[in-house]
């Protein structure tokens, strides 16, 4: 089950529609390499204890979705605590919409050597 912020439910629906042959209820489980192609959305994969891409630049208003592809749970936590995902088990995702301009470093609170950066610039 994908865990989303209220503001990003529309994104989740977009994914469900964009996953042919998968019932909407379980579409989140299949999730979202397709997401990166969506307008205003960017996908970050978590594979092999690594956020990929690790360092990305997006425009304000962009929604970033992290999806855990590992057999081990991870989290996505902003170093300044401006966002924090619940624990993400295998194939679970978390989305956050970046409205403020700035550089947001984040990490996995279970495996703090896992770090990433989202740079938000004016649109």
């Amino acid at each position, binding site marked *: 089950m994908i865990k989303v912020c209220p503001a990003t439910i529309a994104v989740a629906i977009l994914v469900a529609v964009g996953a042919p042959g998968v019932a909407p209820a379980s579409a989140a489980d299949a999730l979202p390499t397709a997401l990166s192609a969506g307008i205003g959305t960017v996908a970050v994969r978590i594979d*092999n*204890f*690594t956020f990929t891409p690790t360092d990305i630049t997006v425009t304000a208003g962009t929604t970033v979705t992290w999806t855990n592809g*590992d*057999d*081990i*749970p991870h989290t996505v936590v902003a*170093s300044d605590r401006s966002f924090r995902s*619940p*624990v993400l*088990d*295998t194939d679970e995702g978390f989305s956050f919409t970046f409205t403020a301009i700035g550089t947001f*470093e*984040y*990490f996995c*609170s*279970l*495996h*703090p*050597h896992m*770090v990433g950066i989202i740079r938000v610039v004016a649109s």
Partner: protein
Amino acid sequence: MRHHDDDPKLDADGIARRGFLECMAWAGTGVLWSIGGGLPSSLGLTRALAAEAPTGAAPFTFLQISDSHVGFDKPANPDATATLREAVGRIAGLPVKPSFVIHTGDISHLSKDKEFDDADQILREVGLPMFFVPGEHDLLDEGRGKSYLARYGKGSRGAGWYSFDQNGVHFVGLVNVVDLKAGGLGNLGADQIAWLERDLAGLPSSTPIVVFAHIPLWTVAAEWGWGTADGAQALGHLKRFGSVTVLNGHIHQVMQKIEGNVTFHTARSTAFPQPVPGTAPSPGPLKVPAGELRKLLGIATVDVVSGDGPLAIVDRPLAG
């Protein structure tokens, strides 16, 4: 039966490389510790089962079990509950009953109530007092550890640290999985280290000390976060003691190192093995072929050959 010709060669850092490789075969049960002369030695559980009960005075023994990950159901172990139950069955069959069991964390996989409940139900069958410290997988509830503390934290301080004495040995349970910093390792924090200093202050240096915590207190692999940022500070307070044993989990494999009077040891998981640092792109579960799992679980064992040098752990299959 001893296999001295199987003794591992120690590298300069005292770590048995051969042991590393053999450990990849994964025993996944538990380690029985026996304290004689202040220096604990350990036996693989399976080997301990096979050993004759000593005829002399019964040694003081306790058992370490780790990383049960109840709730884990992915390759290479579709049922971590079953393997925990198996480990418990082996403990029950020991000829010498340990005095108590230390669980070095990751009791559950996702801190779910059902996972803790299942773990408790199985571990209760051991019929021995249990001492716990949390792993990072035990603090994933919404309250970030409230659930763990409610279940296991009775009489502990802070995030769940405490100490107790048994047969002249001072045991210290530490928590190094809370409030981890980006880019970092495990972390004890200033409060806990200050408490440790006070806790040890009144003890004579001849007191054997056993410290247990989830993440290794020594740096096993910084690139995988396998170490404790302020572990050296804690160890600084232990320097004056003649015998210090540090028991950890988290890395799901046996590693051992001796530094001065301090013996470091990590235990296997009862759920799934993790790779040796440098042999895999990530510390994710080591996937063994499906047909190999039960065989590896059931037959892999740990021998500790202790002499006047550093303790060394050798892992060998029971058959084949």
